[in-house]
């Protein structure tokens, strides 16, 4: 299986040198769903942002490679990199409330990329946007196209963002906890919708979440991240049967299942976190040496 996105030894640091991502490597195969799990602050979002070139200014890539569709993005000049990312990748963001420009109607926000990057004619782009809104089960798409974001519910906005992410037929979509900002009933629908869209469009998907339960439903492969370091990369089946790293095992034990719904109360044991911390420190020493 060819991989569409390959990250090799990606290290991201704060300007003062403190590491945020520690030699992260991972692969997302074409048309497959790769889960990225880890606790809050592990650096999941930063991986997505590094790929898309939207890291906060306080952070910078200090070493590593990001291969997207056979090209190392970090070796490209900025404008060429932006064009490439725009043409092949898209983002489904975490918070639908801040992900749409409040002063613009929905329509142009969806068609923007088609017109700007792919050079579509405006009418074609609008027709495509209408189709997509239908695809994500939005009633009366024509009216929604003319609405402002604040006139729509959170679930509606997330559907729009999904439609918008798929608009230019990207080969890679990064979904950064696309359901955490939504309420539980809507979460399920959105999750199903993303799965449905991914399968139909055969898009590679990097799915960021802290919920292994969700990963088990939508992903083919996954990486477990701790303090900016990948502790395990695995295929789904193997992972759920036989996690290799003790931290992964502890995470898995802490995930509620049908037979054991209360296991989220099981914390990751101190001995395990101590062990991973030690591993991270050793890594830093080696990296510093």
């Amino acid at each position: 299986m060819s991989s569409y996105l390959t990250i090799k030894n990606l290290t991201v640091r704060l300007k003062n040198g403190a590491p945020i991502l520690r030699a992260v490597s991972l692969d997302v195969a074409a048309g497959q769903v790769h889960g990225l799990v880890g606790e809050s602050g592990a650096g999941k979002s930063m991986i997505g942002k590094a790929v898309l070139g939207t890291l906060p200014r306080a952070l910078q890539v200090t070493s590593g490679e990001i291969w997207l569709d056979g090209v190392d993005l970090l070796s490209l000049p900025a404008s060429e990199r932006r064009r490439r990312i725009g043409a092949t990748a898209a983002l489904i963001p975490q918070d639908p409330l801040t992900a749409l420009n409040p002063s613009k109607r929905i329509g142009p926000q969806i068609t923007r990329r088609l017109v700007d990057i792919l050079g579509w004619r405006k009418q074609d782009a609008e027709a495509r946007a209408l189709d997509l809104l239908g695809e994500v089960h939005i009633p009366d798409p024509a009216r929604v196209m003319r609405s402002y974001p604040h006139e729509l519910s959170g679930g509606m906005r997330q559907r729009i963002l999904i439609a918008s992410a798929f608009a230019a037929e990207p080969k890679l979509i990064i979904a950064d906890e696309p359901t955490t900002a939504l309420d539980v009933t809507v979460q399920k629908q959105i999750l199903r919708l993303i799965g449905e869209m991914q399968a139909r469009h055969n898009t590679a998907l990097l799915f960021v979440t802290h919920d292994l339960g969700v990963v088990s439903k939508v992903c083919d492969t996954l990486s477990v991240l701790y303090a900016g370091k990948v502790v395990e990369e695995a295929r789904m089946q193997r992972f759920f049967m036989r996690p290799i790293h003790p931290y992964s095992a502890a995470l898995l034990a802490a995930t509620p299942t049908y037979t054991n719904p209360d296991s989220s109360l099981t914390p990751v044991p101190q001995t395990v976190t101590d062990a991973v911390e030690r591993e991270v420190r050793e890594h830093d020493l080696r990296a510093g040496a």
Partner: protein
Amino acid sequence: MRDARGDVKRPIGLRLWLSGGWLTLLVLSAVFAPLIAPKDPLMQDLFLGRMPPFWMEGSEPGYFLGTDSLGRDVLSRMLYGARLALIVALVAGTITCVIGATLGLIAGYYRGWPDRIISRFVDIWMAFPPVLFAILLIAVLGPGLMSIIIAIVVIDWTRFARVVRAEAMSQGAMDYVASAQVAGRTRFGTMLTEILPNVLPTIVALLTLEMGIAVIVEAILSFVNLSISTDSPTWGGMISEGRTSVHQAWWVLVFPLITLFLTVLSFSQLGEGLKDRFDPVLR
């Protein structure tokens, strides 16, 4: 109510009507002052000094709001005074806004070294006491329309810079900005097409407020005789002259004072009203 595009239409509020109405009236008076002013605003007639307004005993026909101590028509002087007030408001307000908002936008959106330079500059600038600064400036430049405008710009651009910077910064942190960049927008393009429209309501409110402030500053400077040459009528000049004879002829002081007050109030109310209408979230 919805129009053909499905927008919710709101009736224009009383606040917008009143403030907009007063300012429109003022603009018309200023533009057509030579046509509608009943008298020559500079013509003195010492026999007609301190005539009261038309409803009072001893008023002189044709001098609706009375005359000042030199026998000049108060109404005509106020109409001509509107010219200067509005020119200062428009020109000084716009220049202040353009300079301050541009710097604020750049600082707030680009952060990093542009922000450090601009913010430091603003801090140092604001350490000067503004009124002293203005008087000093005019003392150096000499009184005149240009000096007033420059003084206002020099004092007030920091207000725009600070407010717009804060707003641009909070907008810049939102996900839609990152999305625009993933979709291939350059940083400069993102600033103009994504950030600016969202900061615009604030800029408009600040701008109208600034116009009101400009009117006051001009009046204050006229009041202390640092404004335009004394023979072109200004509201501040009238207030200053009226003050000396307030016991014999209160109207020379009171009418320009009320006009000034209403004008400044209208500018600030217009700003608030427009902000509400421009802001898509409040709309």
